[in-house]
């Protein structure tokens, strides 16, 4: 019996077998003879992984090649993992049901610190040794990429190569080089040397002190390969729709936001290119929903033109056009009229103007009041996102959150004759991240998180009709420790996995005691990583060159301490340094 048959036999016994069965529309032709293949791995469940835009883009790029094929693998649920082990089946790709171990390249997309343990979970099931140095020529070259490549140190020992930055060009290059290297029976080290020469590729084993790794950037985003035939999930996934990326980067410069600095320079696509791509995606998938996706969609220069054209197309084809990630300051009455949603989402992030200036979230009180436009248009639910534990935060700032809620209720009442709106307040804990002006900041202590959460809950409980949710303090501490970690954390992650850590991003699976024990067993503490860093202290990720200079980040940090804001990049260049990595199209 072949592996596929054996695998299909156990599928009826697991939850949602459609996660693993494959056969999605727009899957590649499995009969095409290829020279090399790559398995894209996403260390979370199918429903999450299928919603990842990065994987879909890279997958299509590889599958568009004559001689190469891309397949996928997501983290199997715990029930399937158990069955795989019991039935002696290694982890298989979704498309051809081929063991990961037999691919030319295995590439992990790492987008979130709490997925680190699941990298090992997948390697373990795939029967691939954890550490790159334990893998000889008989194994695939195992690489990583994705947003966490901002600081690859905590997971660097698991990978032969790590793509820092955008993978559209470099991933395919890697696949070609490895395929050729394997054909010529080169030593693994020789292959790695060739990979190291590529811009954006970090080869931990060959790294020499003092070297800088330049982030890979798609300079010509307008003409870069764009997603046209996304896979259509067979079972419902988290984002079950076509997603259109309007631009990379962000002009706002919020000081806590890693993506806002990491994805610079800002590169916008023309409305023509966006429209064209949207139509291709909708026609090739049959999706009935299209979402516009960028770091701050409503700031897109050609939004009005694009929206007009898309609205027309979507009306005619019964497609629902969703506009997520709206900033209050760019909110216009017309935007609400078209959509049929009853709930709006806004992120003021901090409760007072003073603190919003510190974090450079340039949203003023008057602008928050603009939600009245939505209330007038018939909306009666508002979701508000805040953070707590921001640098310089006091209880006054927490009180400010409750004040905003009260004010919005007041506005609603005056417009809607005394009724109250549904207001949800979601408050995350601030996590200092690499490649931001706050990369030196301390995270507040575990006890302080609890105290602040209780304080805010107390304040909000006095206001009628408010729903309050918050992030777990435990996962916030772990995420912070891993985000600014160094290579010593590789051992901690292995230890945590050994002790049972899996799916740490899922509340029902997260095991706080396991992670505490893992740090302890390795002679480390999380506090060592969540503390404030001296400005003179070398940082684990200093060797990564994102374009944005350390001097600029430092300057921004100092400005934040003085409560001085920085203007939006659209109003003029602030000199962050990203221009060295390509043209900023909003200038």
């Amino acid at each position, binding site marked *: 019996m072949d592996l596929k048959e054996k695998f299909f036999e156990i599928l*009826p016994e697991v939850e949602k077998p459609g996660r693993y*069965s*494959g*056969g999605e529309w727009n899957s590649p032709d499995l009969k095409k003879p290829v020279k090399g293949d790559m398995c894209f791995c996403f260390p979370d469940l199918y429903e999450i992984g299928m919603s990842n835009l990065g994987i879909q883009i890279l997958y299509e790029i590889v599958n568009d090649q004559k001689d190469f094929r891309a397949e996928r693998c997501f983290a199997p649920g715990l029930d399937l993992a158990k069955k795989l082990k019991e039935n002696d089946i290694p982890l298989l790709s979704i498309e051809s049901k081929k063991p990961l171990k037999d691919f030319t390249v295995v590439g992990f997309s790492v987008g979130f610190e709490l997925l680190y343990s699941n990298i090992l979970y997948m390697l373990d099931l795939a029967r691939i040794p954890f550490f790159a140095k334990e893998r000889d020529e008989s194994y695939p070259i195992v690489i990583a990429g994705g947003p966490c490549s901002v600081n690859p140190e905590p997971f660097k020992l698991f990978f032969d190569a790590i793509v820092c930055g955008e993978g559209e060009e470099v991933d395919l290059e890697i696949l070609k080089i490895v395929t050729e290297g394997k054909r010529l029976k080169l030593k693994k080290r020789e292959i790695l040397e060739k990979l190291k020469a590529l811009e954006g590729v970090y080869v931990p084993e060959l790294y020499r002190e003092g070297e800088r790794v330049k982030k890979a950037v798609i300079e010509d985003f307008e003409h870069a390969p764009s997603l046209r035939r996304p896979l259509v999930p067979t079972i419902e996934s988290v984002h079950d729709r076509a997603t259109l990326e309007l631009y990379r980067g962000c002009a706002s410069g919020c000081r806590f936001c890693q993506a806002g600095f990491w994805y610079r320079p800002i590169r916008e696509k023309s409305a023509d290119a966006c429209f064209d791509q949207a139509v291709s995606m909708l026609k*090739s998938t049959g999706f009935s929903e299209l979402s516009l996706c960028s770091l701050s969609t409503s700031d897109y220069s050609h939004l009005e033109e694009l929206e007009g054209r898309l609205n027309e197309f979507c009306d005619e084809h019964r497609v629902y056009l969703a506009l997520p990630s709206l900033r209050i300051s760019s909110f216009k009455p017309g935007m609400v009229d078209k959509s049929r949603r009853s709930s709006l989402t806004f992120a003021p992030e901090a409760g007072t103007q003073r603190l919003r200036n510190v974090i450079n979230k340039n949203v003023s009180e008057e602008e928050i009041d603009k939600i009245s436009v939505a209330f007038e248009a018939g909306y009666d639910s508002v979701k508000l996102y805040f953070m707590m534990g921001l640098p310089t935060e006091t209880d006054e700032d927490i009180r400010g959150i409750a004040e905003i809620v009260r004010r919005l209720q007041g506005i609603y009442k005056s417009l809607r004759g005394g009724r109250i709106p549904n207001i949800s307040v979601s408050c995350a804990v601030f996590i200092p991240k690499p490649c931001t002006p706050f990369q030196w900041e301390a995270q507040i202590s575990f006890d302080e998180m609890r105290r602040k959460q209780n304080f805010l809950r107390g304040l909000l409980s006095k206001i009628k009709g408010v729903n309050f949710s918050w992030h777990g303090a435990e996962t916030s501490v772990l995420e912070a420790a891993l985000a600014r970690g160094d290579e010593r954390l590789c051992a901690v992650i292995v230890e945590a996995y050994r002790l049972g850590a899996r799916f740490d991003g899922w509340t029902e699976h997260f095991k706080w005691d396991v992670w505490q024990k893992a740090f302890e067993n390795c002679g480390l503490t999380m506090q060592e990583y969540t503390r404030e860093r001296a400005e003179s202290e070398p940082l684990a990720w200093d060797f990564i060159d994102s374009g944005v200079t350390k001097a600029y980040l430092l300057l921004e940090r100092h400005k934040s301490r003085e409560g001085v804001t920085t203007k939006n990049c659209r109003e003029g260049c602030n000199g962050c340094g990203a221009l060295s990595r390509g043209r900023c199209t909003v200038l």
Partner: protein
Amino acid sequence: MKTVKFAKLDSFTFISHIDMLRHMTRILRRAEIPVKRSNGFNPHALVFFSPPLVLGARSFAEYVSIDTDMPLEELLARFSASAPDGMKVIRGFEEDKNPNLQGKIVASDYVFDAPYSPINIEKFEISYQKKGETVNEDVSSKLFCAWEREGKLAMRLATGNTNLRPDRILSELNARLGASLRVTDIEKIAQYVEIEGKLVDVDEYLTTIEMI
């Protein structure tokens, strides 16, 4: 109204009925088949299915009825070109009105992938889990007949309002046959409606019988 008879194979045997419905809308959109919509506050596409298939089983007799003015031949060609590999179009039918297969189908034929041997279907008691509780049931009345088909065991089971899921009889079947059948060994080959007390194959019903 047009009805497409299709097979559900390979990876698509693991797609649940509800996911199938979502998928069907997308196939029709990709194929650019104009589907009529219901009137009312929340209009929906007029697309109707035969009863759900058990997850994991193959089928060569699934039906979907679509309210469209597109000529049948064009519809079948477009549908085929836009359906994933796990769904194969078998044939098409044209009717004056919705054949309401979901409501009318009363029986289905299944082939079980085990060498045929005569089997006693009297006093067929099964036990299965339903909402966390063990149910014991004598299903003889829902088990119409058994016969040999290409060397394998075939059975006709009640489907629809009175329903017998083929996976639920597996353990009893295995005990009686000394086999080790799994849900992936089940294949649906035909479905029936009841007309004047007689079972009529859906294909025949859609082609020759005047609809009631």
